[in-house]
């Protein structure tokens, strides 16, 4: 086992995320790794196969900047607000480039991540019944129970080349603790060949949490201290979700030029996440 690297986000993305890779930034509404997504945009990665149950704003931004060729997902909207306009533009009009879809239900994505984490070739679910999803996705098939003969839906395992999470804390050894809504983040982490984690803070020792959600150091490739790294999503115990930003994003993303200007100013025009947050502060002031 190698020890997790402690490095900057710039270094981590440069070293571990390559053009063409299958990459999952997970976190279900909570702990979405926005800082890492922005760094992928800054480093102008291309041709990525993005994986995420709920693409959210971070993938809207990456897709709008042409980082992605393919998307595995189950719900691609702005939660409580409406559409992801950059995702729509890519699918409806191929801008800035066409986006291939591997589309599932939440239950199907969860089963695929679980199979990936367990290194099984496929996962099972009772689902995809009497709807059109399987007709449009050859990655939804069926098996028969070898005991009852019942027909059960099957999805192939998802095993990203790289999974990136944001978490509240890591200790100096690289053990990572997640507190609060976790979604399929742990399964996505353990399904990956390489796991990168950004954290709010690095502490001497994690608080004792016998049954808490911990990713041990020896499954982590790199830990990056990145306060605010989930903003405008949130980190339970650190800062709240900026619901107003999510609502505001609808206007920004609706228009290609306004979107590009926003990314230019706040993402490409800054060198790191601290710069991004400062830039938003200046705009808000």
């Amino acid at each position, binding site marked *: 086992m190698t020890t997790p690297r402690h490095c900057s986000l710039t270094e981590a993305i440069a070293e571990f995320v390559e053009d063409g890779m299958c990459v999952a930034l997970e976190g*279900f*509404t*909570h702990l979405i790794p926005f800082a890492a997504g922005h760094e992928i945009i800054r480093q102008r990665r291309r041709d990525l196969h993005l994986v995420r*149950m709920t693409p959210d704003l971070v993938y809207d931004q990456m897709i709008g900047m042409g980082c992605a060729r393919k998307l595995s*997902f*189950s*719900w*691609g*909207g702005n*939660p*409580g*607000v409406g*559409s992801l306009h950059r*995702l*729509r533009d890519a*699918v*409806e009009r191929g801008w800035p480039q066409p986006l291939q879809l591997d*589309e599932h*239900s*939440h*239950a199907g994505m*969860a*089963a695929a991540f679980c199979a990936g984490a367990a290194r099984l070739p496929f996962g099972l*679910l*009772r*689902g*995809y*019944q*009497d*709807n*059109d*999803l*399987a*007709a*449009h996705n050859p990655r939804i098939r069926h098996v028969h129970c070898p005991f009852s003969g019942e027909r059960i839906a099957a999805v192939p395992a998802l095993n990203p080349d790289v999974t990136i999470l944001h978490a509240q804390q890591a200790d100096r050894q690289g053990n990572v603790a997640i507190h*609060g*809504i*976790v*979604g*399929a*983040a742990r*399964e996505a982490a353990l399904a990956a060949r390489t796991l990168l984690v950004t954290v709010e803070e690095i502490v001497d020792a994690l608080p004792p949490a016998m049954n808490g*959600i911990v990713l041990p150091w020896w499954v982590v490739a790199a830990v990056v201290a990145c*306060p*605010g790294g989930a*903003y405008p999503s*949130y980190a*339970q115990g*650190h*800062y*709240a*979700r*900026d*619901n*107003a*930003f*999510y609502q505001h994003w609808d206007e920004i993303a609706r228009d290609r030029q306004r979107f590009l200007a926003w990314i230019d100013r706040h993402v490409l025009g800054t060198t790191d996440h601290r710069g991004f*947050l400062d830039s938003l*502060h200046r705009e*808000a002031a």
Partner: protein
Amino acid sequence: MSDCTRDEWMTVVAARMLRDRCVCFVGIGLPSAACNLARLTHAPDIVLIYESGTIGARPQVLPLSIGDGELAETASCVVPLPELFNYYLQAGRVDVGFLGAAQIDRHGNLNSTVIGPYGAPSTRLPGAGGAPEIALHARETFVMLKATPRSFVERLDFRTTAGHCRAASVPSRNNAGREGVARAPRDESSHGPSAVITDFGVLTPRADSGELSLSGLFGDASVAEARAAVGWPLGVADQLEPIAPPSAFELETLRGLQARTRAAYALPVSIPA
């Protein structure tokens, strides 16, 4: 209470359909408002499960997303999504699922995927999320959806979630036929909505055919308005139930909840420094 809005009518009427102590898988938006209104009125021990894995949430304000911190803080427990979908939903432990959609057809089939052909849609919608399996596994589902001839349609562009579906006889446009197994309407393998709450009243499935027909109207709505808003020739149930208007208590509770929610959203969230 003639001054109440149609949104308020929908929310109050949906809330009344929820029994106390039932286990409810809550969608965001109107369903979340309805479920919390039920909890704050006649159903104090209703169990609200949000798709983020928060079980038994008791939010003080309505969440914007299905995973706001408020839900985790007030929940009995927070479970990973594979556990939620496998051990709770698929295991048949959910009594009621609340769904929305972009389109519904006369048998309660839902589309939340695309308008137009799947490969070249005119409108790409968010997609399935939890809906197909919520409809399949919850003991009962309700749909909340405002009616226009573009949302209540003769024929879906894509069937995301099965209703009382009659798949073989009314295939959706996109269906390549591979999965087109007919389900007998209203038998036990049918998982369509037991009520559709819309902005003129309530549709319920006919016992024989599973076809949605008008069974209740809000106070100031008319059959003519309902027919105009629905894209198929809307049947009217033999007994058109009068729906009691929102009571003062119901409206007060709902408006209080929404005022608290607006106040909470208006608080500036500081960008982490």
